[in-house]
């Protein structure tokens, strides 16, 4: 399926690579076949969609710096690799949160939280309040360590054309003491079964 001259012409226009001669050819073609305008519009839309998706993905590169200044660059590499999945998306999340503007800023408003006369919170007034309570109790218990940068999953314009709905992943770092660490292995009959693993072989990036 070789592309036709029309395909190539449209592709050049979409890519901003068309010369004035290309435009003349296109206009002559469109005078005979008005359908090519529709085709051009469709290609423009597809290209814009693809640019958006690729743009979001390759933005991650901006957060990756060269491991310079350390002999062999090994130690820095290990550090970067361990945290790299968070860095790129942290920027995207920051942008997304900027879109949200003031809506997300008041994470905790004591005035909105119902309290008894002693000032102790009874029922969280919002999910943010509940989360803050969890953090506070979790820290006291030694379970809650901190929060990783939010990961943006999706951002889409609201029907009003002004606001943007942002769906993001909130990741909390917790500590737990367990009696054993197991990997997923197979028994004699090929069925999945837990297999004990030495904790020292587990890498920081392995999924739980």
């Amino acid at each position: 399926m070789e592309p036709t001259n029309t395909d190539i012409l449209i592709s050049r226009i979409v890519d901003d690579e068309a010369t004035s001669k290309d435009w003349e050819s296109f206009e002559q073609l469109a005078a005979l076949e008005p359908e090519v305008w529709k085709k051009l519009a469709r290609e423009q839309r597809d290209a814009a969609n693809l640019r958006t998706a690729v743009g979001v993905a390759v933005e991650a590169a901006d957060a990756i710096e060269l491991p310079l200044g350390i002999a062999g660059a090994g130690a820095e590499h290990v550090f970067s690799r361990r945290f790299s999945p968070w860095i790129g998306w942290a920027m995207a999340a920051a942008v997304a949160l900027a879109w949200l503007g003031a809506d997300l800023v008041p994470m905790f408003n004591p005035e909105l939280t119902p309290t008894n006369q002693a000032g102790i919170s009874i029922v969280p007034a919002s999910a943010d309040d509940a989360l803050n309570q969890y953090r506070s109790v979790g820290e006291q218990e030694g379970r809650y360590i901190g929060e990783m940068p939010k990961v943006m999953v999706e951002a889409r314009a609201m029907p009003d054309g002004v606001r943007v709905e942002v769906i993001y992943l909130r990741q909390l770092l917790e500590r737990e003491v367990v009696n054993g660490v197991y990997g997923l292995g197979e028994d004699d009959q090929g069925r999945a079964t837990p297999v004990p693993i030495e904790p020292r072989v587990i890498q920081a990036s392995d999924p739980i």
Partner: protein
Amino acid sequence: MSEERGQLVGSGAADHHHHGEDDQAWLREVWSDNRRWVAAILLAHKPKDAELDDLLQEVAMTLVRRIHDVRDPSKIRPWLRTVSINAARAAGRKRKVRLRLVPTGGDVEQAPAPENDESEALKNEAVRALEAAQRLHPDYREPLLLRCVRGMSYRRIAQTLELPVTTIETRIARARRMVRDEIEFEQEAATMRITQGQSQGAGA
């Protein structure tokens, strides 16, 4: 980037990186100018479950360690492309070991299963276009994805892939047509499923 620096990074000053103090600044310039399209190359060749950030780190590491192997500055881009493709392919060969914490005491809660609705929601128009592009043959998806990176003109893509400009524009045009065909096919299939579902519902 100034014109002088552009020449430095793009074509001239072959041995600049051998001159001590400017080493790091030069390397940073090279990386800064090229990392986005490197990401696009990785996107075109990486396995689906490989992390783009990890692969970028691999390429950055190789750039620091091996750039001195490149004698001809005009070959830096093709060299970076080869490094990127190798990193992406190596990621595909690595065996994935999935680990699971199994509590034998305490009260660790099971993580909830991911919801299908969420993954459905992710399939918006842009993601579908990218997925369709990623299913193309590498000869087509690579120039198409590169063209989505700002500053990657047909000429620059041609230099990077070491192919004639006419080949690049033909491949991009064909890639677009294949992506469009696939999206339309998917839309028709989805419409057909809905119609079938409705007729079955009415029949019941």
